[in-house]
């Protein structure tokens, strides 16, 4: 267990080094001049050269890279060229909303995926209908779901809000930055309910695609396990079908569904950027969306590193869960 975590931390460092190196290379290749963007369209050549020197952009790329890595190690992600604040400070402001949306989305994806998998694997009439839902769900892109959701639940039915994560201007910002927690901590019940209302639609849009993928993998796995010898043994003991499914089949089918969850978590980070833009959700998706046109590479690099860390952490968690589910996998 400890060995696994140590291994993962080592691999995380390697992943982050490669990620940041890639970002640097892309910056060089993109031919956009961040200093030009920083100073504005009318800046003189001399001013740009002076500012480039101050910011270190005139040094060799390798030098710049090492300087950056050194900064990262001390918690300094550099300054955003757009907001003129530290990238770390910006992330502190935008990240919690994204964490909130992603965790909720992941939770929904796992729950919905599990239900879809179980419902469509069963031998009952509705199973075919669930399989149809899964096929159509998989073919609908997330932004389309978001737009349709807004049209239906906001424009037509007026059930749910369409933008931002709260309707209140005085919503609490601490201690966690996650609104559904903070409002509860401050005892603001009306704000808490409002926060959930804002969360549901973007959360569902983020979760639906992954849920369908997880559900499909789980279904295949369940169907295969149902035909296994040990499930026949369980039936020969005269156990009820319910006990056979929950006690003997489900746990043995989790492995591939967990792998898929890890994979989908990574893809979800990409999906969140789109969904946050559609719903004007104040998270790092929105932040990234605004940073890219400004060629704000310190900001983009910071976001990429944070997403990389999140990806490795979630997949480590998946590995641990897989080993818990199946004792044959050792954690070595």
């Amino acid at each position: 267990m400890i060995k696994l975590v140590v291994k993962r931390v080592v691999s995380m460092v390697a992943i982050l080094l490669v990620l940041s190196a890639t970002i640097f290379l892309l910056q060089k290749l993109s031919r956009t001049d961040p200093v030009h963007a920083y100073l504005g369209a009318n800046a003189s050549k001399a001013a740009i050269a002076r500012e480039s020197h101050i910011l270190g952009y005139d040094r060799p790329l390798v030098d710049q890279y090492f300087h950056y890595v050194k900064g990262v190690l001390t918690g300094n992600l550099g300054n955003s060229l757009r907001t003129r604040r530290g990238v770390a400070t910006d992330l502190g402001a935008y990240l919690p909303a994204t964490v909130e949306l992603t965790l909720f989305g992941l939770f929904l994806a796992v729950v919905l995926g599990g239900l879809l998998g179980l419902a469509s694997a069963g031998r009952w009439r509705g199973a075919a209908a669930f399989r149809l839902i899964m096929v159509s769900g998989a073919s609908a892109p997330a932004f389309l779901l978001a737009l349709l959701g807004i049209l239906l639940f906001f424009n037509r039915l007026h059930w749910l809000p369409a933008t931002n994560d709260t309707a209140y201007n005085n919503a609490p910002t601490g201690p966690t930055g996650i609104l559904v927690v903070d409002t509860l901590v401050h005892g603001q019940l009306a704000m808490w309910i409002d926060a959930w209302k804002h969360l549901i639609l973007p959360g569902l849009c983020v979760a639906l695609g992954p849920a369908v993928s997880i559900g499909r993998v789980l279904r295949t796995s369940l169907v295969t396990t149902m035909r296994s010898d040990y499930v026949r043994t369980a039936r020969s003991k005269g156990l009820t079908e319910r006990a056979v499914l929950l006690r003997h089949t489900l746990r043995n089918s989790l492995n591939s569904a967990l792998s898929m969850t890890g994979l989908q978590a990574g893809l979800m980070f990409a999906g969140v950027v789109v969904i946050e833009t559609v719903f004007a959700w104040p998270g790092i998706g929105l932040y990234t969306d605004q940073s890219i046109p400004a060629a704000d590479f310190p900001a983009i690099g910071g976001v990429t590193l944070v997403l990389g860390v999140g990806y490795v952490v979630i997949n480590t968690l998946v590995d641990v869960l897989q080993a818990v589910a199946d004792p044959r996998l050792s954690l070595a």
Partner: protein
Amino acid sequence: MTTVLRRPRGQRAVGEEPDVGSVPGSGPIVSIEDLRVSFVRGDREVNAVRGVSLGIERGEILGLVGESGSGKSVLGLSLLGLLPTSPSPRVSGRACVAGTDMVAADAETRRLVRRRHMGAVFQDPMTSLNPTMRVGRQVAEAAAAAGQDVASLLDSVGIPDARRRMEAYPHELSGGLRQRVMIAMAIAGNPSLVMADEPTTALDVTVQAQILELIRRLCDELGTSFILVTHDLGVAAQVSDRIAVLYGGRLAEVGPATSIFEKGRHPYTAGLLRSRLVLDTDRTRPVLTLPGEPPDPRSHPPGCPFSPRCDHHRDDCDLALPELSGGGGDATAVACLHPVGVDDVTADETAMVAEWPAVPASTGGRDPAVIVHDVHKDFPLRSGPRRTRLQALRGVSLEIERGESVALVGESGCGKSTLLRAVAGLHGVDRGEIEFSRGMSAQMVFQDAGASLTPWLSIGELIGERLRGEGLSRAGRAAKVSDALALVGLPAEVAAARPAQLSGGQRQRVALARATVVPPGVLLCDEPTSALDVSLAATVLNLIGRLRRQLGMAVLFVTHDLAAARIVADRIAVMYLGRIVETGPSDRVCGDPAHPYTRALLAAVPEMGRTGTRIGGEPANPIDPPTGCSFHTRCPDQVPECASRPQVLVTLGVGPGSRTRSEGSEGLDPGIRQVACSRLAPPSEPSPTEPSPTGAAASDGGEI
């Protein structure tokens, strides 16, 4: 542990289930009447069971014997009410267990009958136990209703240290222990009937003998009835009270086990008995076989299903299905119009005896095809500081002469397959050498012929692959392929077929054709017959025997079955935990075994009423093999020095029964025998730390 387990025996959980089944102790536990089961696959109907009527008494073991496709497993699953649902089965007739008809009853009633009255043991204990649940809990699930204590259940099926083993997961137990857990689970609910479907087929012979003994003991002590479904008449005969022989979904013969075994009257029973390999089968000529292949359940003939293969066949056999008749007392009931011993027409066995083709005269003298010299092979199991290594081969030396057939025999994990793969070059060795003589090459035939043939290639392509680079034209290649097919007894049309279209026996023939299309110097066989039906296994053994004589190949044959080894091989090498413990001419090793392990293997060969020195337990852990003679932990004859003396092969004299060591082994005498048993080794000899190759350590010739 749930509280249910601690409830006193016989008391049932409140609200458990309504009363299902008859009053215990009256009438037969099973009565099957005209049971028919068929499956529709595509547009064809597969008739698995075609009208079987059979009863099983309380406290009786019924052996249900048949080849694949005979319907024996479908019959067993019908009784459990667990027939596969897709393709959906068509069932008619009655299959009553404890008074409930498992054909007509609804799913919930069938479940309750299983819960209250039945238990089941399946073939492969690795796949039949839930890998993610501790075995104690799995047994507890079955024991809940009867309130039996799990630890004492595990104890009663001979699992040592039961309390600790309850916490184990299936993969942490050996194959034998897993099957004992399955049996504990089957008897946990105090069932009246246990359905055991090939319970020993996946196990080693020594463990098979232990499990069969256990089944007999449980039947005698608990009064539980058992259905023992098996393809091996010998296994059935060893423990059953009665035997029912199935053929083509019909009962061919039913009767007391001794009567069936000693004077089976159905030509099929007689044929099975004839083609069984036993330790005194004549090995100087091909084994007697049943001609033909098991019936295709999709197209049964209108008359007797056995008629196409029957040497008693007459015209009236094909008119109608023969019904069981006769029986009672010692006699068997037989479904045959012309049973053996009544009006024999061609029951002249000598007419079927074949001869081996003539062998080209040996050049004489020492002419090895392969020399294996002091080979070691480890498999790392875990890397890092606490790394462990599985020691698969711990110093094996072996010479195979040109044209000679050598069998490697031992339990699973003894290293026999590792050695074979090393000779095939499929993996390297850590230490030692494997040397082929000039012009010698090796080809391999695997156990599962179906899995070893690429499914999307035609048979012609599979065989023709080996002819690439021979500079042959397309037509020349095709001619070579049909020659190779003809040599293994297959028509040339087979070249166009895909592996899935062939039967198991045909696939193994194709595998042999592929290996011999360019005759190799050495043919390596990895248990090529153990996945085949008894009658087919004999055919394949004969085929290997003929091919090697015709093509002048040497054969290295890996098997766990000493009877098969004796038939196929000139010389047998018995392996235990990565070392050869005894080697010598087949007849001598089987007729006069010197090593206690060889004796134990021989005693475990299933045979009616066989007794002998059974060994307990299972092979020791190859990660940390015992010191000295690695067999001493299980050896019935062990003395204290067995644990300390090095395990060294010494050469024995060749006289029958003599235990004289002869002069060293130069010039490889084919009759030479070597044994690695410290009790047979000279008491005071400068002992090398490793077993010496080819018994060179034996130098002085005194009596022991």
